[in-house]
C-alpha cells in the first residue's frame, strides 16, 4: 500500500497527462497544487497555534486559559480572527505607507516559505534542496527584514529603537546559529534536510548536544522571544516594532511569530531529533507525519517553557552572551567535531556517536570550569571595597610649610 499523498499525486499526474497536457505543464500544476495545500495547512495550523499558546501560557501561570467557546475553548481563535478582520485599519500620519504595509506580509510569508525544504515524512517533503540549510538561514534572515521595515516605517521612536535592537540581536545571533548548523552538515555530509534526516540512524543530538543547545538558544534569539525579547520589551519601549499596527496587520505579526516558533521546533527536530524517524515511520511514511509534528510540538513547548520561565536580559548582557560565550563555544565545537570526525571510525556508528558524545561532554566540562573561574574573579572584583564608596577624607593639615615659603 502506497501512502495516500503519493497515491493522490500520481493519480492526478496520470489524469492530467491523460488530458493531453505536456510533461512540463503537469509538473508546474502539481507544484502549484502542492504549494497551495502545504501553505493552507500551515496557516490553519497557525490558527490552532494561537489556541495552543494561550492554553499553555495559562497553565504555566496557573490559570485555565480560553475555555468558554467550544470544547476546551477551541473556537476562541476563530472568534479572535473575526474580530481582527472587522477592526479598522489605521495607518498613522507620516508613516512610509508602502513599507508599512509590506512589512507584515514579509513577516508571515518568509516563515511559511521555510517549510518548503522541511521533510515532513519519508515521502512527503517540499523539495530536497541541495543547499537546504543555507536556504533556511537566508529566508530566516529575510523575516528579520520584515521587523526592521515595520520599525522604520512606523514614524515612531520606540518602534525605531525596537528595530535597531532587532538588527543588533539578529545580526549577532546569526553567527553562532550558522556555525552550529555546520555540525550536522559535517555529520551528514549534506546540506539537504532530507539527506540529514535520512542519515540519522542515531539522532544527532547524541553526537552533537552542544551544537544542538547553541542552535536552540540562538534561534530563540532570532525569534525575539523571552529572554531575548528586547525588540518588544513592553516595560521600556511600549511594544517595539508593532506599536502602530492595528487589526489584521498586527494579527499577521502575531501569527508569524507563533508559526516561526513552531518552524524552529520543526527545523530543530529535523536536524537533531531525527525528523520523521520513529517506530513504523519507514514502513508507513504516513506515520512519519505524526512523529514529525510530535517532535516539532515538543520543541515548541520547550521554547514556550523557556519564554515563561526566564526574565528579559539587558542589551549589553545579550551581546556579551553571544560574542564572548556562544560564538567561541560554537567555533570550538565545530573544530572538535571536524577533527574527531576524521579520527573516529565512520563505519562503526555506535562507537562514532559515543566518541562524539564524550568529546561534547569534555567541552561542556571545560566550559563550566572556565565559567566558574570567571565567576570567582568577578565575585572578588565586586567584593573589593570600591574607591568611590569611601567617604571623602578631610585634607590633612600640614604643619610644615613648603620649602619655598621658609626662605
Amino acid at each position, binding site marked *: 500500500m502506497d501512502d495516500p499523498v503519493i497515491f493522490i499525486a500520481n493519480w492526478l499526474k496520470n489524469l492530467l497527462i491523460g488530458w493531453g497536457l505536456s510533461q512540463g505543464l503537469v509538473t*508546474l500544476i502539481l507544484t502549484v497544487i502542492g504549494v497551495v495545500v502545504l501553505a493552507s495547512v500551515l496557516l490553519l495550523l497557525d490558527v490552532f497555534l494561537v489556541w495552543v499558546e494561550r492554553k499553555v501560557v495559562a497553565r504555566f501561570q496557573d490559570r485555565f486559559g480560553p475555555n468558554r467557546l467550544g470544547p476546551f475553548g477551541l473556537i476562541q481563535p476563530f472568534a479572535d480572527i473575526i474580530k*481582527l*478582520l472587522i477592526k479598522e485599519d489605521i495607518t498613522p500620519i507620516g508613516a512610509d505607507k508602502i513599507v508599512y504595509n509590506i512589512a507584515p*506580509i*514579509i513577516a508571515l510569508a518568509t516563515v511559511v516559505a521555510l517549510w518548503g525544504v522541511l521533510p515532513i515524512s519519508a515521502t512527503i517533503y517540499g523539495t530536497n534542496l541541495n543547499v537546504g540549510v543555507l536556504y533556511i538561514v537566508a529566508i530566516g534572515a529575510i523575516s528579520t527584514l520584515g521587523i526592521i521595515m515595520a520599525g522604520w516605517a512606523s514614524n515612531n521612536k520606540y518602534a525605531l529603537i525596537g528595530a535597531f535592537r532587532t538588527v543588533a540581536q539578529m545580526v549577532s545571533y546569526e553567527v553562532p546559529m550558522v556555525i552550529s548548523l555546520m555540525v550536522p552538515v559535517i555529520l551528514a*555530509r549534506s*546540506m539537504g534536510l532530507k539527506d540529514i534526516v535520512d542519515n540519522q540512524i542515531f539522532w544527532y543530538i547524541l553526537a552533537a548536544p552542544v551544537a544542538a543547545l547553541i542552535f536552540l538558544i540562538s534561534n530563540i534569539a532570532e525569534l525575539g522571544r523571552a529572554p531575548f525579547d528586547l525588540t518588544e520589551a513592553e516595560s521600556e519601549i511600549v511594544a517595539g516594532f508593532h506599536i502602530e499596527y492595528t487589526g*489584521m496587520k498586527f494579527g499577521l505579526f502575531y501569527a508569524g511569530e507563533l508559526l516561526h516558533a513552531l518552524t524552529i521546533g520543526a527545523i530543530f527536530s529535523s536536524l537533531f531529533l531525527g525528523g520523521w524517524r520513529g517506530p513504523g515511520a519507514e514502513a508507513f511514511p504516513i506515520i512519519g507525519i505524526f512523529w514529525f509534528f510530535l517532535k516539532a510540538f515538543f520543541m515548541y513547548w520547550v521554547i514556550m517553557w523557556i519564554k515563561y520561565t526566564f526574565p528579559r536580559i539587558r542589551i549589553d548582557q545579550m551581546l556579551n552572551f553571544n560574542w564572548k560565550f556562544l560564538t567561541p563555544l560554537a567555533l570550538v565545537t565545530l573544530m572538535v567535531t*571536524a577533527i574527531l570526525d576524521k579520527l573516529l571510525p565512520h563505519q562503526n556508528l555506535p562507537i562514532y556517536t559515543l566518541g562524539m558524545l564524550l568529546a561534547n561532554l569534555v567541552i561542556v566540562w571545560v566550559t563550566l570550569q572556565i565559567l566558574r573561574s570567571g565567576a570567582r574573579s568577578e565575585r572578588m572584583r565586586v567584593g573589593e571595597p570600591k574607591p568611590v564608596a569611601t567617604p571623602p577624607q578631610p585634607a590633612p593639615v600640614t604643619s610644615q610649610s613648603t620649602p619655598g615659603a621658609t626662605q
Partner: protein
Amino acid sequence: MLNDWLFIGVFLLLAPVFPAAALLIPRLIAPRKPNPLKMQTYECGIETVGNTWVQFHVQYYIFALVFLIFDVETVFLFPWAIAFDQLPLFAVLEGVLFILIVVAGLVYAWRKGALEWK
C-alpha cells in the same frame, strides 16, 4: 534538480499571496472613518516630539562589521563541511587553521573593546 528550484520559486511567489489576501478582507468589510486625531502616531500615548528618524548609535555598525567577517567565513566553510569524505586529515586541519585565524580576529576585536556595549 530544476524541479527543486521550480518548487522554491513557486513557493516564494505564492507565500506572500496568503498574508496579502488576509489583509485584503479587512479592506472590504472593516469600517474606514479616518480623522486627524485618530491618525496621529500613538507612540506611548502622548504627542510625539521632534523628528523620528534619528541618527543611531555607531556601536550597531561595529557589530555589523564583526558579523560580516564571520558570515563570509561560514560561506567558505560550508563547502569544506560537505566535501568531508574526499578530504584527507591534512585538509581538515587546514580548515581548522582557517577558523583559528578568524578566532584571532575575534580576540582582537574583544581586546580592542569593540564588543563592549557603551
